[in-house]
């Protein structure tokens, strides 16, 4: 983030992103429902709001930093190959094709 070379990593892989998003959605909705029920029993709306904010705080701790569980499926990049061979061959085939279409 912000294009600075931090000494620690800040990104997750794709399966980790899916897990993190599902986790915080469930946590915040759960705290919201519990807060709504308790707020209705106590007839205090502030209890509901505080409960949702508490759920947000717990989600921030659990899903915002890139914990190792979100980095278990690293993206597999293909191995680099020497591209000079392919650039020569592809340039030659382009030139011969153009001569044939003329």
């Amino acid at each position, binding site marked *: 983030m912000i294009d600075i070379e931090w000494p620690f990593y800040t*990104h997750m892989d794709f399966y980790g992103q899916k897990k*993190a998003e599902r986790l915080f959605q469930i946590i*915040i*909705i759960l705290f*919201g429902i519990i807060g709504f029920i308790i707020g*209705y029993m106590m007839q205090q709306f502030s209890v509901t709001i505080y409960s*949702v*904010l508490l759920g*947000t705080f717990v989600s921030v701790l659990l899903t915002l930093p890139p914990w190792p569980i979100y980095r278990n499926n690293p993206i597999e990049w293909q191995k680099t190959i020497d591209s000079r061979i392919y650039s020569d061959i592809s340039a030659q085939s382009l030139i011969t094709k153009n001569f044939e279409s003329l």
Partner: protein
Amino acid sequence: MHSFFSRLNTLFAFTLTVLAVLTIGVFFSTFFEKYQDTVAIGVNKPIVKHMTDFSANRKKNDLGVLQLNLDMNLDHLFDWNVKQLFLYLVAEYMTPTNSLNQVVLWDKIIRRGENARFNLHDIATKYYFWDDGEHLKSNNVTLTLGWNIISNAGRLIHVRANGSTSFVFPDNYATSRSASSKSSGQE
């Protein structure tokens, strides 16, 4: 979701959406509430004076002076959707020139958590009881207490309480020396 800030952004937006849905839920949970109650109003020593109203036209109008007794207990009106109550005491009467006159004599704001039980004796009215003309003598006036519910999420509801009283003003004007309160006008 790849960077830290995009995760933070998504989390924040989701929190706001959940809060909005819960607020709509609070609105629906108190949609059919009536907020009705009974109060006791009393009137002592009503008199009528004939004075120049300097805040209106320079003619002489009737000014009613009275003391109020108010007894009410409004604790049960504060459910989780009520932020504050705005109480007002209104006097309604009829004159030959107007078929309905309404004058607010007293009001009060009660916030959630403040004391909502009142037993007031012989208080003066908060506002002057000017008539638009000179027809207050021997006029039958009805006092009604009403309140305005100010919600966290919902409509503004006007409710008139049960328990209104009526009284009749005397037939003669009072001189300013015999009146005990609000005798600041000129005669």
